[in-house]
């Protein structure tokens, strides 16, 4: 059994904006930042792209499956080989400090809030 990971040199569609799956996400905000989880099963680390462009956060990944020789499809619920999703970040988020990790097909992205946007407690004095 060969582990054929087919990249398609004969298929130039990768160049243009290919149809892609929308990965489901959870977005959780706490007082110091935002954590985003995205399900992108089948995407190895080197096929994952995470870009911050001005205020756009773009997740993109390509599915690489170990395929046997002569495999014919009988049933497919995942019929595209790419995930893509974009988010608009708001001003108080610090786009320079975005960190991410990919583990077992789940991408976790942490976007901290800029220091000036961190919550501060304001004392209320009784006059």
């Amino acid at each position, binding site marked *: *059994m060969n582990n054929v990971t*087919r990249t*398609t040199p004969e*298929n130039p569609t990768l160049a243009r904006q290919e149809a892609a799956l929308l990965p*489901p*996400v*959870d*977005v*959780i*905000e*706490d*007082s110091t930042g*935002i*954590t985003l*989880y995205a*399900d*992108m*099963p*089948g*995407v*190895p680390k080197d096929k994952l792209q995470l870009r911050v462009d001005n205020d756009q956060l773009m997740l993109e990944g390509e*599915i*690489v*499956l*170990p*395929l*046997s*020789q*002569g*495999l*014919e*499809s*009988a*049933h*497919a*619920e*995942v*019929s*595209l*080989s790419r995930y893509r999703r974009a988010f608009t970040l708001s001003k108080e988020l610090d786009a320079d400090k975005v960190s991410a990790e990919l*583990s*077992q*097909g*789940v991408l976790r992205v942490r976007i901290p809030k800029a220091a000036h946007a961190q*919550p501060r407690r304001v004392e209320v004095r009784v006059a």
Partner: protein
Amino acid sequence: MYRSLFSRDLFSELDRLQREMGGLFDYSPAIRGLGRGGYPALNVGSTPTAVEVYAFAPGIDPATIEVNLDRGVLTIAGERKRAAPAGSDEKTTVHLDERFAGRFRRVVSMPDDIDPAAVNAEYRDGVLRVTVKRREAAQPRRIEVQ
């Protein structure tokens, strides 16, 4: 390329059988909150020597996935726990909550010529790949002409 490999118009026997088995879902899609298929999404393919099932099940501890093959029916079951929000901050807000959490079970009917003893499962990058070999006797052979 997946369009050609796992193309929609090649939906065949396995698909029909699988939908029949999962028929319950079709009668109550709303109450179970699942669209067609559910979690994990499955792709099934076949080669002359094996049947391959790919379950797209991200974020699961491989040790907790139950894969059973019983009388020609392959069952994939397990549980995905909700990711605990980092630090139980009382200011925590959930803005989007789209990822599946909870117990899951999916069932696929296997063809008749499989070898129940030759099943192999591996989990990688959030995809569980189950390979079920076909019986030797059922594999195509070239017959020597004397």
